[in-house]
C-alpha cells in the first residue's frame, strides 16, 4: 500500500526512467539478447572490466577470433616491421571495398569497358578518387606483402615450426601478384593491352605446354573480348576466393605455431 502511494507521488521523468530501466533489464535478460551478445560482451548485463571478461570478449567474438586472448609483449612493440602482415590484410579489405564500388559502374565487355572507366572519372561522384585508391592500394599491398616476406625471411621466422606457414605465405604472394596483374587488363586501354601482351607472351614460353597455357589465359589466339571477361572473373571472383581460403589457413597457422615469432 505504501509502495503504491510512493509510486503515485513519482514525477513523470522518474517514471519514464524507471520504465526504461525495467525494459532494459528485461531485454538484457532475454534469451534473444544473451544469444547474440556472448559472455564478456560490453552489451551484457553486469559487465565488469576483468581479465576473465577480456578473455571472454576474444573467445566469444567472431571478429576478435583472429586474435588470441594475449600476445607476447614484444609483438606490440612499435618497430619498423610492425604490422606488415596485418597491413597487407587491411589493404586487401580496402581493395575489396573499393573494388565493390567500381563493380557498380564497370561492364567487362570490349565495347563498354574503356568508356565505363572514362565515365567513372568524369560522371560518377568520387569515381576518380575510388579508382585511384583501388590502384594505389593495390601497389601498396604488393609492396607490403613483399616487405612482410622479407621481414620473415631475414628474421629466420620461416624455420621450424613455421615452414608450412611460410609456404602458405609464398602462395599468398603469388596470388597477390596474380590479382594485381589480372586487374591490369580491365581498363582496356593501350597500357593494358601491351602489358598483358608482354605477360602472356612470356607465359607462352612455358616448357611443353606453352601454347596451351597462353590459349587458356587469353581465351583464344589473341587478346580480345574473351580475354577481358576471363580476366575480370579471375580478378573479382576466383582469385579473391582462393586468397581468402589461404588467408584463413595463414592466420590459423600463425596462432597454432605459437604466435608471432620472437626476437633473435
Amino acid at each position, binding site marked *: 500500500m505504501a509502495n503504491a502511494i510512493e509510486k503515485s507521488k513519482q514525477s513523470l521523468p522518474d517514471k519514464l526512467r524507471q520504465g526504461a530501466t525495467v525494459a532494459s533489464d528485461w531485454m538484457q535478460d532475454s534469451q534473444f539478447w544473451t544469444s547474440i551478445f556472448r559472455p564478456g560482451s560490453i552489451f551484457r548485463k553486469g559487465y565488469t572490466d576483468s581479465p576473465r571478461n577480456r578473455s571472454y570478449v576474444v573467445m566469444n567474438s567472431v571478429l576478435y577470433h583472429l586474435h588470441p586472448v594475449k600476445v607476447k609483449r614484444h609483438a606490440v612493440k*612499435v618497430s619498423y616491421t610492425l604490422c606488415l602482415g596485418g597491413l597487407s590484410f587491411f*589493404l586487401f579489405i580496402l581493395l575489396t571495398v573499393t573494388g565493390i564500388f567500381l563493380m557498380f559502374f564497370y561492364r567487362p565487355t570490349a565495347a563498354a569497358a574503356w568508356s565505363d572507366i572514362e565515365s567513372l572519372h568524369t560522371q560518377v561522384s568520387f569515381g576518380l578518387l575510388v579508382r585511384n585508391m583501388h590502384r594505389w592500394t593495390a601497389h601498396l599491398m604488393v609492396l607490403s606483402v613483399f616487405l612482410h616476406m622479407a621481414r620473415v625471411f631475414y628474421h629466420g621466422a620461416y624455420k621450424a615450426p613455421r615452414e608450412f606457414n611460410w609456404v602458405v605465405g609464398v602462395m599468398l604472394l603469388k596470388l597477390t601478384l596474380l590479382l594485381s596483374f589480372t586487374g591490369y587488363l580491365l581498363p582496356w586501354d*593501350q*597500357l593494358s593491352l601491351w602489358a598483358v601482351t608482354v605477360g602472356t607472351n612470356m607465359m607462352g614460353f612455358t616448357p611443353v605446354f606453352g601454347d596451351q597455357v597462353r590459349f587458356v589465359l587469353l581465351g583464344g589466339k589473341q587478346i580480345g573480348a574473351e580475354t577481358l571477361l576471363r580476366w575480370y572473373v579471375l580478378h573479382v571472383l576466383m582469385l579473391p576466393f582462393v586468397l581468402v581460403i589461404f588467408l584463413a589457413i595463414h592466420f590459423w597457422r600463425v596462432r597454432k605455431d605459437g604466435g608471432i615469432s620472437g626476437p633473435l
Partner: protein
Amino acid sequence: MTEIPEHLLKRSQEAKANAEGGTAPVPESGGASDDDGETIPRSLLEQSQQGGVAAPTSGGVATIAPPAMAGPSGNTHRLLTVVKSGSIQDVKANPGDKVHVWPHLLAAEFTAALFITAFSIVFSVFITRRCLSWRTTTRPPIRPKRPGTFLGSKNY
C-alpha cells in the same frame, strides 16, 4: 638439498645468539672454520688448483654460493661471455611476458589501419593516373625508338 655455506651458518648463529642476549656459541669441532680451507667447495678448489690459480685460503669471502639461475642444460655461463646464462635464457615464461590483445594490440592495429587509410586517400587525391587511349593493336603505346636514341645520337 642445497648445502648452506659455513660462514652463513656461523653468521646466523651469531645473530640468533645476539637476539637472545647471550654470547655466540663456538662452532662445534666438526664444523670448519674460515681458516681451514674447507669453506671452499671441493670442486672449485680442485678446479682452481688445476688452472694454476692459488685458492684463497683465508677470509669468509672465499666461499662461493651456488648460482641461483642456470641455463637449460645446467650451464651457469654462456661460452665466451661473462653474462650469467640464467639472466638471458629464460626457460620459463613469466606472466609479464604477455599482454592482453584488447586494448594493447588492437589499439596499435587500429592506429596503423587509420594511418594507411589516410595515406591512401591523400595519395589518391593528389596523384591521378588517367587511362591512356582506347586499346588498339595497330598502334603501340610508345613511339618506337632506335637504340641510338638512348645513346644521344641524332639518327632517329
